[in-house]
């Protein structure tokens, strides 16, 4: 596949105003080809999270455009962004972001519920996804009854539930030990292969970078290849 799934052009993001303001993203432009796994690396505070938020529509840039899967994200209103997240962009967070009051299976089912997928189909897909991430036996457990790695795998399964085109993962292995982190990374890599999802992932870990098709380096709010 050669078409670009993500296209970022001239994006600026500043926080605050006046002398105390932080210029977190400075004229960032890059493209991500569909069906690839791109790693975003850079020192802490270089702007990785800010960039991922802007790409996924969780944050708005001050300047510039972001196009995801042919939709200009930066032009969408609040509901449009919600629809985008519902169907085409999914997140995996460093802090997992699971719903504490729901079981693993219910968590995975959330995007399907939002998409109003019929119950039977939803249950089948949840089973499939939990199987995919190797948690078929833990379907009925709540997040606080799962280990960190298990939680992150539930988060990956949930991110994949609605079959998004783009999966954004912000330091998904940040809170995991090296081995567990690697298994989650490998899971993401596998997903790219099997589901054809495009993955944009930020990380500090050099080992992870090797799994990526391409590495984008961030420095002081700017991206270099």
């Amino acid at each position: 596949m050669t078409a670009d799934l993500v296209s970022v052009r001239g994006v600026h993001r500043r926080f605050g105003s006046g002398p105390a303001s932080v210029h977190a993203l400075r004229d960032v432009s890059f493209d991500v080809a569909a069906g690839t796994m791109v790693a975003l690396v850079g020192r802490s505070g270089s702007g990785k999270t800010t960039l991922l938020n802007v790409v996924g529509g969780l944050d708005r840039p001050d300047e510039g455009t972001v196009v995801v899967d042919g939709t200009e994200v930066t032009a969408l209103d609040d509901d449009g962004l919600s629809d985008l997240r519902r169907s085409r962009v999914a997140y995996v967070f460093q802090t997992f972001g699971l719903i504490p009051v729901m079981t693993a299976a219910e968590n995975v089912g959330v995007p399907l519920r939002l998409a109003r997928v019929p119950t039977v189909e939803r249950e089948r897909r949840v089973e499939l996804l939990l199987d995919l991430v190797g948690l078929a036996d833990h379907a009925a457990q709540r997040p606080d009854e799962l280990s960190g790695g298990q939680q992150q795998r539930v988060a990956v399964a949930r991110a994949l539930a609605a079959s998004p085109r783009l999966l954004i993962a912000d330091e998904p292995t940040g809170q995991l030990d090296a081995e567990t982190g690697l298994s989650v990374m490998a899971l993401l890599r596998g997903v790219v292969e099997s589901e054809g999802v495009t993955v944009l992932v930020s990380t500090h870990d050099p080992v992870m970078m090797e799994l990526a098709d391409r590495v984008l380096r961030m420095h002081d709010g700017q991206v270099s290849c």
Partner: protein
Amino acid sequence: MIRPALHRPSVRGRARADAGPLLLVAAVVAVVTLLAGAAPPLLRATADDAVRDAARTAGRDGDVLAHARWEYDDAPDGGRIRAPRLAEDVDDFRERATEALDPGLRAVLRPPVAVVTSPTLKVTEGTAPRTFRLAYLVDGRGPHSQTRVTWVAGSPPAPSVPPERESLTVPYGGPPWPVQIGLSEVDAAELGVRPGDRIPLVDEFRRAKDVQVSGVFRAEDSGDPTWRLAPWLLRPVAGADGVGTTRLGGLLSPGSLPDARLAFDQDELDRAVRFSPEPGALDSGTAEAVTGTLVTLKATSGASSVQDTSLKWETQLDLVLREVQTRVNAASAQASVLLAAVLTGAVLVLLLAADLLARRRTQPLAAARQRGTGLPDLAAELLVESAAVALVAAGVGLALARLVAPGVSWWWAVPVALAAAAAGPGFGTLHAARATRDRRAPANRAARRWLAQTRQLRGAAVEVAVLVAAAAALVALHQRGILPAPAGGAAGPWSTSDGEAALPSSAPALGAVAGALALLRLLPAGTRAALRWALRSRRPLAAFGAARAAATASHALPPLAMVAAAALAAFALTLGATADRGLADGAWRTVGADARLDANPAAGVDMRALAGRVAASPGVRQAVAAQVVDGARVTTESALVTPRLVVVDAAAFRRLLATTPLPDAPDLARLGPAGPGGVPALVRSGDGSLRPGMRLRLPRDGDAEAVPLTAVGTAPAVGGTGDVVVVDAAALTAAGVPVVPNTVWVTGPGTARAVAAGTDGVDTVLRAGVLHERRGAPLTAGLLRLAWTSAAVLLALGLLGLALGAAEGAPERWQTLSRLRTLGLRLREARWVAAGELLPPVAVAAIGGPLLGVLLAYLTAGPLALRVVVGAEGDPPVAVPWWGIAPLAAAFLAAVAVVVPVEAAVRRRRRLGEVLRAGAG
């Protein structure tokens, strides 16, 4: 002992960071201490008013009366000696009676009036039965005939013997001794006599009396209370001596008093000294002492059989005061119940606020712990803060209370201030201790289950304790009632703040907490069921809302505060509404219609014609004329009773009753023309002295034979709760008794307008006016105001509980919602989910709370003795104020509609990207 080290900067810093919640706590403490501090003294002031009111309106029941026989005036060798200084003798008697009074009692009585009255005589001329009495009145300003009447014709009564013979001896058995009297203009006209004329009078043994009119007078002030003792001196009084009779009176002067003595037998002339209470000198404190003195006075007063001139005391004032004292006690007890309810609501909300504050501070407190601050030090720091807040706020509340009330009650402010001071450090150290303990739930399922079970057991133990306390309080309330034990006599208000009364008066409050706990026991099960349903349904929002609700359902404090406050607010509303309904019913019973027109007997208004005219006015449904005679003498086979006799067209009366909420009296249909047993009558009596089936006789004046009556059924209550006999007007007329209606009852929406113009000689009593007056009576008004205020404060506390509960859950709720937002949930949908989470406990509070409150009102209405305050014989039926309960429920539901958008707006500025940054979220 190690003194805990206070780190002042941390105390100050924390207080500054959480100024909002601390101010809120302060506001709650201030408002509740204001109410709790002001209500008792306000009620005490109204109790004083009530005592004065009772003394003022008691009429002759409030008077203290001393009787004494005259010294015999027999001459040693037969005959009776005329005593020319008899008026001075009466003055001495007045002095003697005054002196005999306990100074404390004298201080609350007005200067006395001495009154000398003759037995009732009959006027032998004229068709209508008329009676006559002679009277001599004297108060501190001198005899009446000299100082306070104007002689419009003739002259004041003079001695019937010249001065040189003033002390003559009159032989026994001589002709009637002549005596001069003065007549009022109205009485003179009624008798058709002029100065110099003699009034044809006989006594009960038909012995003629020689009574000559010396002059005709006009009272300078007919409103002077002295005349109250002998109103017939001023104008004819109907019914005083039986049905259809009119009593008139002749005024004696100091000069003619000795002649009056000779005109009657030795003991026939009654002399009495009458003291009326001075309402202004009474208050609820002195009332108790006065009651005691009166009881002693009556008990030690000489037996009536003793033939001497000692004073014999007679009064109902002690009963009047005891009755009002009972009302005061009941009102204070009811006020305690309401205040206990408000305090309970306030304490729950304060606990909730402290919990919220502690949760907000978990992190800084845990950090302080990690820096090495010990738990006791932490607790001390928090105690300094909360005690300062509580004391300052309570001080402000009490100061405000002092501004609006004549005093301040500390007693009730203490629990609020204590709760506010203790809850902060309590929850704070608890949360800090928990935060620094290893919080990870044990991985082992069995261990986790064991932990959960101990927690549940602890909770259940608390609930059982509350339940037992509530049950004990309810039982105590039912067994001993809310009023102080009668053995304790007339206790002063608020003197029962001892533990004995505390349990019963907190019964509704404890009941509300116990009931709320029971309701909340069902909440988790309910939300779990809802969650199961929602998860199966295809509505995503329902599923998310229910999931959150199920997660928070076990957190009991916020819904507990809400449900208990809603229940107690509904309870206060129901209590007020029930009392109000009792007043309204009472006004119906007293007036008997929308308006009652009472004829002034002297005016000679044709009430039947008046009824006809009123009935023709627009908006009048019924106007029925009747003759109502109070204290009519009716004899049964064995006794003389004095019921209220009502002579009325039975069919019209029944139609009238049908247009009122008063109970129907189907037996009225049985009234009609006289049968073989006599004229049919309906009877009603409190003590069973009049029963259906009895044969009665209605004695008539003069030679006419008594009218036989047969009690054929039960009479409706007419104008109160006393004994009643109802007879059909046509039947009584047919039996030869003239019927002269003196009352007209009017019903219908146009009543007020129809009777507004008024008629000369007719007093109009409007039901609305009576009701207005009773609602405004000091104790009643005070209690109603307290009930409405308590309901409002409790509603506010309930809503505050809702807001605090929402604030407590908000961080977790919006964290979940943000996570759902990253999955594509729209903001609008997020609000619905938030509402869905908040709704279950709020719905329980909005619906279950008021129902619980009404149930508590049903359970406690009887023992709370509302009847005493309302002045009804029986307990007024519980009135459920739907007009107040529906808005109460709506307020809770509407509050959710306010809280959710506010929460969303507060978080709107925080972008999703920030919410989910590492560590946040």
